[in-house]
């Protein structure tokens, strides 16, 4: 009896498996309109909002789309695997780190003509800097999605407990240092500040440019990591590391800065505007935290913010470029961009939508992010950004872990960066 049942089960399994397998094959063959477009992004915080926008799009056009979130660390691995295997998602985020490589290898759909014909997308309405990230040989290969700036998040409760006044618009980096010193507790239960080595765009890059240093030269041929101005700026960070005003690297690698803020472990951290949903959706930060502009550099008076903007790209060999374009067009249209701002997802690239974003979460001083737009520096990139960026981060890891002085670290980073840039 048992044998019979077992063999029946096996047969049933076999048959259903075959059915599944054939279904698989059918699915692969039919690029029918009923199948959802595949959309790939890396920020799970933005997913719910983007889902809403897609739903509105579907309501309008009947075209469905499915979002796949792959975390930043694996996103590009997966994307290039897909690129090599000939199976990119229909629509996906593009970033300045990689856009050159993808465009020059002819993997993205040229949308220049579609933009020209489109009533919804007028290049005038988006920052030129962002367009340039996704332009190659004078053709457009993506539609700008957003812009982001960096600001300082702080925990009011921890400030109150230490009796320190909240950050103001007049703060300098020295003020931040002083506040962190007062708030950091000797037993390690609270630290004044946190910036992990791998958080460059929203972290220490801003210090460098504030001191009139740079990471990558304008002509993209030379590293600026060993400039005296850069080293000087970075030595502020070294002070924070050496005086233990930040959690040890071991802690920062295991728990990201946002987790540390959410658990009340740190009083201040620099975060990009894209992190808004994460802090809005966490009860602790919603109640206790607020935003201030980044401190000024007391020497130069500068207060720059690194900024970047993602682009919505379409795979060149997508079987449904027309539908994919309709979706991307909607994302980039005024309506789509306004929605993105209102939902508090990110600051939209479309001009004059920031006010909407600012009002999306009244509990936070989002104006700080808008004010940071007064002095913006595009995130440094070149054709092989990832290669030299990773090399620099690895060197910085040693500095953060107190294995190297900042000066030595910066010089070594520059050396490695220049070697890689020379290969480009």
């Amino acid at each position, binding site marked *: 009896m048992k044998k019979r049942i077992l063999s029946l089960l096996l047969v049933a*399994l*076999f048959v259903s*498996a075959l059915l*599944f*397998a054939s279904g*698989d*094959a059918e*699915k*692969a063959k039919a690029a029918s309109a009923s199948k959802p477009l*595949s959309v790939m992004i890396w920020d*799970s915080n933005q*997913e719910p909002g983007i889902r809403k926008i897609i739903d509105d799009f579907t309501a309008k056009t009947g075209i469905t789309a*499915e979002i*796949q*979130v*792959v*975390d*930043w*660390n*694996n996103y590009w691995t*997966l994307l290039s*695997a*897909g690129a*090599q*295997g*000939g*199976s990119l*998602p229909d629509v996906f985020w593009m970033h300045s780190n990689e856009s050159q490589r993808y465009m020059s290898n002819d993997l993205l759909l040229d949308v220049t003509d579609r933009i020209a014909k489109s009533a919804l997308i007028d290049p005038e309405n988006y920052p030129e800097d962002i367009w340039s990230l996704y332009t190659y040989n004078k053709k457009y290969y993506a539609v700008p999605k957003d812009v982001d700036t960096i600001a300082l998040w702080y925990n009011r409760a921890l400030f109150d407990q230490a009796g320190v006044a909240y950050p103001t618009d007049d703060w300098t980096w020295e003020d931040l240092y002083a506040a962190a010193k007062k708030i950091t507790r000797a037993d390690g*239960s609270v630290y004044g500040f946190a910036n992990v080595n791998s958080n460059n765009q929203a972290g220490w890059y801003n210090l460098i440019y504030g001191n009139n240093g740079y990471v990558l030269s304008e002509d993209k041929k030379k590293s600026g990591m060993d400039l005296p101005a850069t080293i000087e700026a970075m030595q502020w960070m070294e002070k924070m590391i050496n005086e233990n005003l930040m959690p040890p690297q071991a802690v920062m690698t295991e*728990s*990201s800065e*946002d*987790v540390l803020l*959410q*658990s*009340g*472990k740190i009083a201040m951290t620099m975060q990009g505007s894209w992190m808004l949903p*994460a802090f809005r959706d*966490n*009860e*602790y930060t919603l109640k206790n935290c607020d935003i201030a502009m980044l401190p000024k550099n007391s020497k130069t008076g500068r207060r720059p913010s690194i900024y970047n903007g993602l682009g919505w790209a379409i795979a060149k060999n997508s079987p449904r470029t027309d539908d994919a374009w309709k979706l991307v067009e909607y994302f980039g249209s005024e309506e789509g961009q306004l929605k993105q701002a209102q939902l508090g997802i990110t600051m939209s690239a479309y001009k004059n939508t920031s006010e909407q974003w600012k009002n999306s979460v009244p509990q936070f001083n989002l104006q700080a992010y808008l004010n940071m737009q007064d002095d913006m520096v595009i995130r440094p990139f070149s054709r092989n950004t990832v290669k030299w960026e990773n090399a620099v981060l690895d060197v910085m890891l040693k500095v953060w872990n107190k294995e190297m002085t900042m000066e030595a670290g910066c010089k070594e980073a520059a050396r490695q960066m220049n070697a890689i840039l020379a290969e480009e």
Partner: protein
Amino acid sequence: MRKRSLIHSLLLHAILIGVSLTMLIPFVWMVLTSFKTPGQAIQLDPYVFFPTQFQFNSFIRVFTTNNFLNLYKNTLLLIFFRILCAVVTASMAGFAFGRLKFKGSELAFSLVLVQMMIPSQIFIIPQYQMISKLGMTNTTFALVFPGLVSAFGTFLMRQAYKILPKDLEDAAKIDGLNIGKTFLYVLAPLTKSSLVALSVFTAVFAYKELMWPMIVNTSKDSLVLASALAKMKGQYVANYPELMAASLIACVPMILLYFIFQKQFIEGIATSGGKL
């Protein structure tokens, strides 16, 4: 004498229970964490061991953002076809290597041995390139590909066939059965326990595979459980309850199957080792 064996017994059980706890605590922690709120998971003062209320939010969120049914399906297909391929090809080859003498069989078998000694990563890049060129990424075929034949299985089945008594073959010959029929109808049925062992072994290792599925099936619909978890790893860094919920959902089917088919599992693994 009695006292001594009582103490021995107590000590024995103490150790065994201790080890059992060590085996179980990670799972218990997985379950507890999955029912906490994200805030509770990172609360330090006081530390939250047991969630006050059992929250299902993590499970709901994980379920709705990941098509687990699809993940199960893909993983099952992978396991099923790997088993099928291994059992069929290994039985045939195992029989031939184990019971037939023919020219070139030694050389051919050395190929089997060679494969068993080589780390699988040697094959990965070219296999990946083959699949890419065929345009077959993101298919079940791609998942099964490296396991279309099984060197280990062949080795195992060869041992299984070797130890069968020769009289059966002779009897079959007298009855007029040719080699093929002898194999299929007389000898193969006798290797059942080894086949079960092979199936279990293949299933467990197919289910655990991470690198291959991760690089060859990258689109959402074609992921398996292992690669889906890997994908979630960076994404939910801040949200441990969701991460644990996802891991739990990934584990549960296999654990259930294990409890039902315990005997086969354990005996299968034992046999696969014992036969060698």
